[in-house]
């Protein structure tokens, strides 16, 4: 162990050590509170993280440990441990974001479980360093790999840091009454710059078995900056206005098609464009992987 070049054993030790550190943190400081990353903290964290990765890369000639992180011997154990922890998550019923974990270890709130977060952090660090390395030593042959690494880095980092800025509010609209108050998952009322007036709730059913066929609401949307929009919002067809996406969410189930109100969900996610750029890179990487899958070869890190 720890004789250069390091092998997969050192990779497993690094990942395992990180899990151990995570467990100790979990017991000492408790589950992670993602809300502390709310704007503008997340922007600073993102900038510092990327600069730190750049600095690490600059030092990689001198520090072997950093060079090691860009090898498959580091990537494979990190991915494998992420698989194991995600399997645990898949087998454990998860509590809502606003609740405390339901078990003493914190497995029922995996997204706030230190070992899980640290392993994914290690993954993003590896992926980030490899991406920088692939840009510095650019080869067309590796474009799909580069696009995939950049894409997954953007999706994971921006999606996670941005989650604290995401707002999801329920709005209960009765017939003919403009509503501008939204309820968050903690039952806090928010006054919004968007008001919705329900003109008509539509519920269509299939003739054969009375299964729901369509849920829709004819609405008028008024904004504080003077917009007045008449539109129809239905399942799978949200309406976007002033940074909000407005979704058909619910209705009076006891009344069915005769429901006198409609429930909308208003979602704002300022980090969505960054995540979508990442998704775009992943698309390019995936298609490129099909065109040029690459062959088995020895020791050609990343």
């Amino acid at each position: 162990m720890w004789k250069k070049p390091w092998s997969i054993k050192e990779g497993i030790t690094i990942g395992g050590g990180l899990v151990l550190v995570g467990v100790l943190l979990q017991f000492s400081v408790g589950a992670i509170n993602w809300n502390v990353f709310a704007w503008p903290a997340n922007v600073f964290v993102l900038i510092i993280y990327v600069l730190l990765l750049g600095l690490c890369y600059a030092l990689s000639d001198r520090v072997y440990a950093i060079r090691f992180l860009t090898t498959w011997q580091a990537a494979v154990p990190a991915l494998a441990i992420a698989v194991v922890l995600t399997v645990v998550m898949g087998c454990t019923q998860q509590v809502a974001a606003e609740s405390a974990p339901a078990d003493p270890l914190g497995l029922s709130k995996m997204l706030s479980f230190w070992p899980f977060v640290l392993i994914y952090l290690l993954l993003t660090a590896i992926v980030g360093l490899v991406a920088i390395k692939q840009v510095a030593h650019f080869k067309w042959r590796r474009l799909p790999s580069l696009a995939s690494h950049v894409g997954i880095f953007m999706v994971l980092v921006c999606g996670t840091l941005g989650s604290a800025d995401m707002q999801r509010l329920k709005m209960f609209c009765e017939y003919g009454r403009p509503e501008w108050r939204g309820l968050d998952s903690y039952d806090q009322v928010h006054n919004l710059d968007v008001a919705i007036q329900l003109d008509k709730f539509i519920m269509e059913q299939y003739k054969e078995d009375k299964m729901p066929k369509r849920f829709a609401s004819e609405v008028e949307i008024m904004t504080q900056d003077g917009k007045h929009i008449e539109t129809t919002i239905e399942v799978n067809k949200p309406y976007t206005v002033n940074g909000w996406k407005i979704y058909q969410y619910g209705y009076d189930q006891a009344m069915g098609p005769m429901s006198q109100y409609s429930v909308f969900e208003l979602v704002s996610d300022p980090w969505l464009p960054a995540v979508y750029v990442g998704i775009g890179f992943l698309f390019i990487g995936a298609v490129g992987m099909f065109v040029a899958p690459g062959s088995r070869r020895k020791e050609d890190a990343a």
Partner: protein
Amino acid sequence: MIWDYFLFIAIIAIVLWIAGAVAAWKDKALVAYTTTIAGIAIFLAYIIVMWASLQRPPLRTMGETRLWYSLFLAVAGIIVYGRWHYRWILSLSTIMAVVFITINLLKPEIHSTTLMPALQSPWFAPHVISYMIAYALMGAATLIAIYQLFFAKKATAASIATAEQSQVNLVCAGYTFLTLGILMGALWAKEAWGHYWSWDPKETWAAVTWLAYLVYIHLARYDTRHPKLACWLLIVCFVLLQMCWWGINYLPSAQATSVHTYSMQ
């Protein structure tokens, strides 16, 4: 009804595809291409006519998606054949396409069944079809791994290298579709449920599958010293994939919370 003609179209397409599969075994590449592509063209033409006559995209019912699945299996087969010239791939894609066409012939009533509003999206078919193609390719790669582990006793170094390379190629092709499927699912989820990723049990297992195949891809590409480990890993990946596909329906943790049961709140 356009559906009444399906039997004839299906028989013509199946005959052409079987001819293509046989030709591929006999290394008559030109015949294989011609017949397989002719079958695809006829099948595609049928779907286009159906689209026009229904006056809506034929993507709504399970039966209609199976039509696309059969078509795309043949397309995937001929693409993989054109790319790597595996003699067996057209047989595999044809058998799978025939299975799904047969289901459609035996259960035509599904063409009138209803579809939840949450599923009524242009993303539905490409998302599902992409996953189905991925599952088919991963299945083929797993078969090679099982063959390598348990049946290839008298293998030469060259035949092992070929088998390993076809494994990697198939997994990479499958991974393309797995990734496209997961990404289209994310874009669809944003439109349907308000967020591109909610760690719904189905999504969690999709992440497990996606990461597990990444382990294989990184290991198989660079670690040439443990070919058996790579084969075993591929089998584990395929088991995880089954969990994601249908296994989670039996998990208590998923039954309680998954939105993939398609219930409207």
